[in-house]
């Protein structure tokens, strides 16, 4: 089937994607939403006429808010993003808007001080690092009995590398989307990333588990490692695809037909699972082989 044989190609493709993702991040960073930056978000449904942006901006200025990002959402709804305000200002602002533009309904209002935002960022980073370490330890432990021809900790490291790859590319894509389409990154996005970590390593473990099982029997231990891995991949391929397929089926349905409040959260999950499956098959297992070949290159 040649997955192992052509591993250099997969490595190139993944390497390219990872580099592009890093460039995106350096250039554009992530479009952080108010969860992380602090600020206010207000969603108004106009029950009378929908006023023009100029008129709206006037009312905001009158209340000391000079910078407002206005985003229409549907025919009679608008989303406003501006700096953090206290409750008194909030009410005055609402009243002013009502007086000038008629009846309205506030669908959603969030205002977050920037201290909380910074804290969340810190916590998010911690969670991701912690998860990676925890998974590394777990995989190394789960594969502790399989030390030949590749030591058990290497399984853990490669699993982490595959996860890194998945998460990095997903973040890179969102960096791109954030810059060109204004899609924001909020707390649910981090939740999606953490979920991807857990789910994607699931895939990788299934492949590794098959390899582990084969290496237990003396029949396979004699054979070339790359052949063992190739065979394991072949046997688990159907299962990997089926599993991801079924989960993706449901997620795609929600992505396209479901509500908009979780749309980008689901998108992050979908991307993560797609890349996660790809990396388990085309990156993780081949990396094992490459590492083994590198270590034993002098023994030939």
């Amino acid at each position, binding site marked *: 089937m040649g997955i192992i044989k052509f591993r250099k190609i997969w490595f190139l493709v993944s390497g390219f994607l990872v580099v592009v993702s890093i460039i995106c991040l350096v250039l554009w960073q992530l479009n952080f939403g108010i969860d992380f930056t602090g600020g206010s978000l207000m*969603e108004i449904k106009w029950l009378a006429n929908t006023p023009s942006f100029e008129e709206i901006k006037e009312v905001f200025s009158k209340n000391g808010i000079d910078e407002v990002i206005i985003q229409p959402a549907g025919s009679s709804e608008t989303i406003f993003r501006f700096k953090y305000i206290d*409750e008194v200002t909030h*009410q005055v602002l609402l009243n002013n808007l009502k007086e000038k533009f008629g009846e309205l*309904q*506030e*669908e*959603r*209002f*969030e205002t*977050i*001080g920037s*201290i*909380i935002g910074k804290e969340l960022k810190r*916590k*998010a980073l*911690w*969670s991701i690092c*912690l*998860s990676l370490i*925890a*998974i590394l330890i*777990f*995989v190394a432990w*789960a594969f502790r009995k399989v030390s030949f021809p590749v030591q058990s900790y290497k399984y853990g490291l490669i699993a982490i590398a595959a996860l890194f790859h998945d998460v990095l590319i997903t973040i890179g894509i969102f960096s791109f989307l954030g810059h060109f389409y204004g899609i924001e990154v909020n*707390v649910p996005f*981090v*939740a999606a990333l*953490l*979920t991807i*970590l*857990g*789910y994607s*390593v*699931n895939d990788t*473990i*299934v492949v590794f*588990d*098959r390899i582990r099982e084969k290496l237990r029997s003396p029949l396979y231990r004699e054979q070339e490692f790359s052949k063992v891995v190739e065979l394991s991949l072949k*046997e*688990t391929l*159907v*299962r990997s695809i*089926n*599993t991801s*397929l*079924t*989960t993706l*089926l*449901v*997620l795609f*349905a*929600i992505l*396209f037909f*479901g*509500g908009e*409040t*979780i749309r980008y*959260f*689901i998108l992050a*999950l979908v991307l993560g699972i797609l890349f996660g499956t790809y990396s388990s098959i085309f990156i993780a297992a081949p990396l094992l082989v490459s590492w083994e070949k590198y270590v034993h290159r002098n023994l030939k």
Partner: protein
Amino acid sequence: MGLFYPKQNLKTKQKSNIRLIVIGIFVLAILLGSLDYPILWDKGVDYLNAKLSLGLPHFYKLPFHLGLDLQGGTHLVYEADLSNIPPEERNDSMEGIRDVIERRVNLFGVTEPVVQINKTKSSYRLIVELPGVKDIHEAIKMIGETPYLEFKEERTPEETEEILRKQSEGNEESEGLDPYFKHTKLTGRYLKGAQLQFDPNSYKPYVSLEFNDQGKDIFADITKRNVGKKVAIYLDGYPISIPVVQEPITGGRAQITGDFTVEEAKTLVQRLNAGALPVPITLISQQSIGASLGQTSLTKSLKAALFGLIAVGIFMIVYYRLPGIMAVISLIIYGIIVLAIFKLIPVTLTLAGIAGFILSLGMAVDANVLIFERMKEELKSGKSLETSVDEGVKRAWPSIRDGNISTLITAIILFWFGTSIIKGFALTLFIGVLTSMFTAIVITKSFLKLFVSGRTKRWKWLYGNRIPNKE
């Protein structure tokens, strides 16, 4: 020859065991399913009652707990200013704040409010969640108007001098300190009640305070210490009355006299009675969601999820045939069990939580797929159907277990990291994954074993594709 008999008995015993297990599973499913969706049970029971004039009861109704983003409501974060409180008393103060705010919030008639202390390294916070509140502004106003009452006693002249000196030097620590009065333990937390009274001689209004038992003792101590000296009563950071202590007051009552109008005194009494804070708080974060936004998103997403799941069901049946049907039934039962657990614990459902549930459904499918693929392999290598099932489950289990544990680990970390909405997601994911391990191993396996010894044994093709019909 005699060996045949025991083997036969063993087989039939096993068979009836399996049958019992499967029946047990279905009974459990019906019970839990009725917990999830009592309307079906009620309808069925009504029909039976009408036809057979029985007196069967309706099913116990336990509703789902909906999160803020589904039923609307507000999430508030307050920061408490504890700079004037010595470190040992800080936890106590936070508890006091929590109690007072919870009392206020309950007065407002919110069902299931959440008031929690959140302590980080540098700050003490209070998180208030009010689901289903119609007028969020009123709620915030009411919390914000909680008065901050404290009693202070005079400093010694040396202390006063030192603080004044430090302040003139520009010492940062002494900046906010009051040089004349220092903090005592007596705050609004110990206030039992306040009353509007009129002085019998001058007819001027004053506010009479009554402390609870603890407060009574503290107040007695303070007055004992300060006979002949001033004790200041501060409200919202400003002194409103600085009487001189005539004698120790052990009765736990104090008076706030001053130049109040009757209206002012009345308002003060009202505010104090609704609960007085021991420490000032500021609102640093507010997130309010109108219910309608969450509702539309929810209905759309649920519908979409349902279509997705039907697609998955069709795929499983087409690809795996008979085991596929078993998997679908097993999945339905899985869904029923998980939803029942959500109702029983209860777990607060958010939109993200529902996504977590769906994700765990996908992983439940995964466990089944692992078992089936293994089974197919065993069949291909020529083993009997029964052995294939056994081996399939046995050898798939390590993969299932290890893969799911990693997801459980991230769910636990997510739980630690997140706000209430993310916590809901983590919890649903965790419960979902655990349950899926159970259903795959117990339920699917039981179904498979049940059918294995039956007639369908002959038709191996029902179990996998492209396997020659050996027997």
